[in-house]
């Protein structure tokens, strides 16, 4: 009887101690609770054997995005076309940047020799316990060359997010639609190849990005034709993102409205990504690959592998 009472008392006092510890952890500054991150991977390692198969089953039942075309070959062609358009626009952007560099730099020697990107297909493991956080894990890590800053896309050209941290086997991805992801600069495409006005987009937390539209990216275009319209595609053109992410598709314009701060002067757009990050069975991680032989920008031939 006395021993039982003693066990109960010690259990209660331990509980009180743990509760106070958690209260302190819950309101402590971020730099003091960084150690808690060490426990994330073991917990996810234990949960993954249940979470991953169930998630895959659910996505297989429900589908992972817009309806597929009946003919798989047509579907493949659409993917290839999207990818080629993105490469073309990326190349044009690079040419434009290089011309600017040549103009601005008196030496004109340090030019980007080419862009090598390894596209890695990574299965999505899932999100964490709190649905308010959009961070999700993918099954690709440092051993595959994935590290913080790598760009994550789906269907080749649809931007999903950016890797914020990686361990040996997994990486944590912060979607562009998560409020914590911050602002990004996009460009409205007036048609498949013509650049329109730039826009500064900010995630609002409901799966969309809202932003003010700036002046046209193409000064030769007439001003009436530069107005953003519902249904137009918005692509990434943000110097803060990796070169491999430039001109990836952010989404399509869902709504055009007056800017909240300057309703008479500025236009705002609401952009919705075509594919939701948390509904994917697998994503493509674009890893800058130093080992892939670079293409000679003048001849287009593969250069010798780097030592």
């Amino acid at each position, binding site marked *: 009887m006395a021993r039982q009472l003693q066990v109960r008392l010690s259990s209660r006092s331990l509980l009180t101690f743990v509760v106070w510890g958690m209260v302190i952890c819950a309101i402590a500054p971020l730099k003091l609770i960084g150690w808690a991150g060490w426990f994330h991977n073991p917990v996810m390692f234990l949960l993954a054997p249940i979470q991953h198969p169930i998630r895959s089953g659910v996505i297989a039942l429900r589908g992972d995005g817009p309806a597929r075309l009946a003919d798989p070959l047509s579907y493949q062609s659409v993917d290839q076309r999207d990818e080629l358009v993105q490469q073309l626009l990326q190349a044009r952007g690079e040419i434009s940047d290089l011309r600017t560099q040549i103009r601005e730099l008196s030496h004109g020697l340090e030019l980007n020799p080419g862009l090598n990107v390894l596209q890695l297909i990574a299965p999505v493991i*899932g999100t964490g316990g709190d649905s308010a956080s959009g961070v999700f894990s993918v099954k690709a890590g440092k051993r595959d060359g994935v590290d913080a800053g790598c760009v994550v896309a789906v269907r080749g050209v649809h931007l999903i997010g950016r890797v914020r941290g990686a361990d040996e086997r997994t990486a944590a991805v912060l979607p562009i639609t998560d409020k914590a992801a911050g602002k990004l600069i996009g460009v409205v495409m007036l048609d498949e190849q013509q650049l329109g006005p730039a826009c500064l987009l900010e995630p609002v937390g409901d799966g969309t990005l809202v932003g003010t539209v700036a002046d046209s990216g193409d000064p030769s275009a007439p001003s009436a034709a530069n107005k953003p319209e519902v249904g137009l595609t918005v692509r990434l053109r943000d110097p803060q993102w990796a070169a491999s992410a430039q001109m990836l598709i952010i989404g399509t314009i869902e709504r055009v409205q007056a800017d909240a701060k300057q309703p008479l002067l500025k236009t705002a757009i609401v952009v919705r990504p075509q594919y939701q990050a948390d509904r994917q069975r697998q994503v493509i991680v674009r890893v800058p690959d130093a080992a892939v032989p670079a293409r000679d920008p003048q001849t287009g031939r593969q250069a010798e592998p780097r030592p």
Partner: protein
Amino acid sequence: MNVMVALVIGYLLLGLELGIREGLRLWPTNISPSFVLPFIVLVALFAPTTPALWTGLLLGLAVDLSTQRGPELTVVIGPHALGYMVAAYFVNVARALVFRRNRVTLVVLSIFAACVANIVALALLALRKIIYADPIALSTGDELLQRFASSVFTGLTAILIAFAIFPLLPALGLHDPASRRFSKRS
């Protein structure tokens, strides 16, 4: 109470919740049900106070540890652990007023317990926003509404949990004292 069985069931339910939640989420909101909370409610209905609080605390801790927040992928220990523990305490206190063996009790109490847990978790995260202007903090108003809706949704999963786990009560070492009061001693 059989702690090992409770931990195994809690682990299975948490894995199930993480896997299935995106399928049940009311897109494009974050409204989604919890599978773990009805189990905590069930334990709190039948178990003594201290084990019930420990169950809530440990399962909430698992939720906290599985969640990375913000651009720095911060893991914040406490919001869900304390939230689930307070929810367990709420149920533990309220159980004197309800018919424990009725499955509707579990459904209704799950909704209220989820509200309590979400309020505590959100309050702690909002406190961080006030003190530090954290990048991990949430927009409290929208989030509170979504979490209330999630709590109602949790009531639906509680129906499934009620039918699946009520038969496991003896294995969990949980008994209704009211049903034993008039039974024969073996």
